């Protein structure tokens, strides 16, 4: 959905998706109507399920970062775990370079894992405390590159450390995880993932556990790796401001569904879906103190066992209409590659739109075209 080779997020050209070259380029990972229902255990819940992820379409291209944002419990991690094949999906499909992935065992699974690596939130838990950095990386390199000579392997391990900016490499080889800072540990986890020479990285809140002062360093590293290694990166975060800086495209989830998507700058500067607007308005921002709109955000995230009918945001939405309670809104295609699943963008609802956003703002918003 974005210009595949450009490193500059602001140049993410939404129109590229329609241009022949981009269309011809096969995405590294694609999910089609990806769905996960977890069975609910316990008395009186027979047959009930948690609708954790429903109908999620994602496209990860080489050399680009897609951010997945949304509140706690909206299904972000589940999407990543489905893509990583750590969980069986209920329905829908995951494609690696155009072919459906239906493996969970054996050699083909290993091939898939090599191509799709996951980086987790907690660098403390993800590294075994009894192994040195050298051991961890050597193991990753040997598993994924059998047949390397010892010298080649050692060289590759050093190269990995250099790549994640742990220099000089020698200083880190003999260290145990507890001798490293959080940021260094997360770099080792990234190096381990790179040991597989993956095509895609799934980074689930890779910096949330790190100190604010060192987060930027790790995010800059991920962005550099994306361009240097032409990686496709899924960046899961609560922090929509970081999505603005580090992701070409931003996808917003609410209660298991994608409700808005588009180039990160558009989505963060001009959110279209009422939930995204609430999310942006809630983020702390010292620059905006005077201008904060008072649009009280009431209510709790919905139950995923008995989700609200129609639009899942309707119980909290200040603009909810009758149709919102009855029918799930499709994705409406708006200008500049932005899409939002909200009935306000339906043709013939210009009046409601003006009432919701103020006539001036609404005048700048065209009708959407339902695309899904």
């Amino acid at each position, binding site marked *: 959905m974005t210009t595949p080779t450009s490193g500059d997020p602001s140049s993410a050209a939404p129109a590229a998706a329609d241009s022949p070259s981009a269309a011809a380029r096969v995405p590294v990972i694609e999910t089609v109507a990806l769905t996960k229902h977890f069975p609910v255990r316990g008395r009186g819940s027979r047959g009930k399920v948690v609708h954790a992820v429903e109908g999620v379409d994602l496209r990860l291209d080489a050399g680009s970062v897609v951010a997945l944002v949304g509140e*706690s419990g909206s299904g972000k991690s589940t999407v990543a775990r489905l893509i990583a094949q750590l969980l069986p999906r209920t329905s829908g499909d995951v494609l690696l370079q155009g072919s459906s992935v239906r493996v969970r065992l054996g050699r083909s699974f290993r091939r898939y894992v090599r191509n799709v690596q996951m980086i987790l939130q907690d660098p403390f838990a993800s590294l075994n405390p009894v192994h040195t950095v050298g051991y961890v990386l050597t193991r990753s390199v040997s598993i994924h590159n059998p047949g390397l000579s010892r010298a080649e392997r050692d060289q590759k391990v050093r190269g990995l450390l250099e790549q994640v900016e742990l220099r000089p490499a020698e200083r880190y080889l003999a260290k145990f995880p507890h001798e490293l800072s959080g940021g260094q540990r997360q770099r080792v986890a990234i190096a381990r993932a790179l040991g597989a020479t993956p095509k895609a990285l799934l980074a689930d809140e890779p910096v949330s556990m790190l100190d*604010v*002062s060192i987060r*930027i360093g790790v995010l*800059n590293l991920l962005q550099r790796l994306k361009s240097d290694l032409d990686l496709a990166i899924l960046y899961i975060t609560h922090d929509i401001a970081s999505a603005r800086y580090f992701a070409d495209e931003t996808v917003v989830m609410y209660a298991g569904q994608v409700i808005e998507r588009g180039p990160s700058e558009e989505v963060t500067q001009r959110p279209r879906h009422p939930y995204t607007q609430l999310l942006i308005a809630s*983020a*702390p921002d010292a*620059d905006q103190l005077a201008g904060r709109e008072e649009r009280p955000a009431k209510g*709790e995230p919905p139950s995923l066992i008995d989700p609200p009918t129609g639009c899942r945001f309707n119980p909290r939405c200040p603009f909810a209409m009758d149709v919102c309670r009855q029918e799930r809104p499709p994705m409406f295609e708006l200008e500049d590659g932005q899409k939002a699943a909200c009935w306000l963008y339906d043709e013939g609802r210009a009046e409601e739109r003006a009432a919701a956003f103020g006539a001036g703002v609404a005048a700048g918003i065209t009708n959407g075209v339902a695309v899904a």
Partner: protein
Amino acid sequence: MTLLDAAAAATPPRERKPVLEIRDLSVDYGYDQNAVHALQGVDLTLHAGEVLGLAGESGCGKSTLAYAATRLLPPPGVITGGSVTFTSARDGHGGDLLRMNDAELRAQRWRDTAIVFQGAMNSLNPVYTVGRQLVDGILAHKPRTRDAREQARARALELLEMVGIPKDRLGSYPHQLSGGMRQRVMIAMALALEPEIVIMDEPTTALDVVMQRQIVEQIMQLKDELGFSVIFITHDVSLLLELADRIAIMYAGRIVEDASSEEVYKMPRHPYTAGLLHSFPPLRGPKRDLAGIPGSPPDLVNLPTGCKFHPRCPYAFDECKLTDPALGPTRFGAAEPERQVACLLNDERVAPGPIPLELGVRPEGDRIA
């Protein structure tokens, strides 16, 4: 309160009554040479009606300060020196908390100062309803009269309503509430005895931004209604810039900068503060370069010599390795009497030339957006 209100309130220095004065407070974890020097000579003042923000990286001593100031420090923590003086803004009673005996402390705690512990929302007892836990909490501090339980129940309902939880949730078990609701219950508990000071240690960190905003707005509203003062602890400076009147920035167990929110934001004086401000990607406005801070937070057992920030400081000069700067006036001295900083760049006797541009925004005239 917004930055603008804060600015308006700050310009004619209104009369500010201190309710909590922390002086030269030091805390170690452990004894001998392996002791972690978690706090070193901390000075901090909370004024009546004020929201004082306390920010800094993980491990810099924020929670330790909160525990020490309320005498709730768990072992092996030891207060090695200092004083913490409470003076009621309501009737003037008080004294040095560090010198009170157990009975005096018990009377003081929760009634004068209450604390919402970090991660507290996960410490509710899973086998009792939140109503029961609220009622028990209130009863623990009330004389045992015959209708005490009835009164406590009524008060619990009142408190829940105050923090925006429907009354019918009194009978809910903690797991039946969302994280945001559990956190509100903890806030309700802290407010039960109408304290004058509420210390909140990362009250919103585990919540997503929408819930965070709801809770923060609720706290501010309650503060105005009930008239308590707040110490708000978080690592998220951007949140503090919005809600705090003053901000104290901590590094390695010391306060390195203490100023009004607006001053911290528009003219930081300490290189660490400036680094923190450049660590947050701004959500709005033009994109700007993000630097973060090189290196990582120091090991408190093996602290660097001199200024504890010098290994990471872009402006460090020779003297920084030798002298540990004390918290004191800024280079602009009397022009900004209300703020303090601990950085040798502000000491003209040793600083090598003019103050770096980034840290030298003049107090007057430069108050531009």
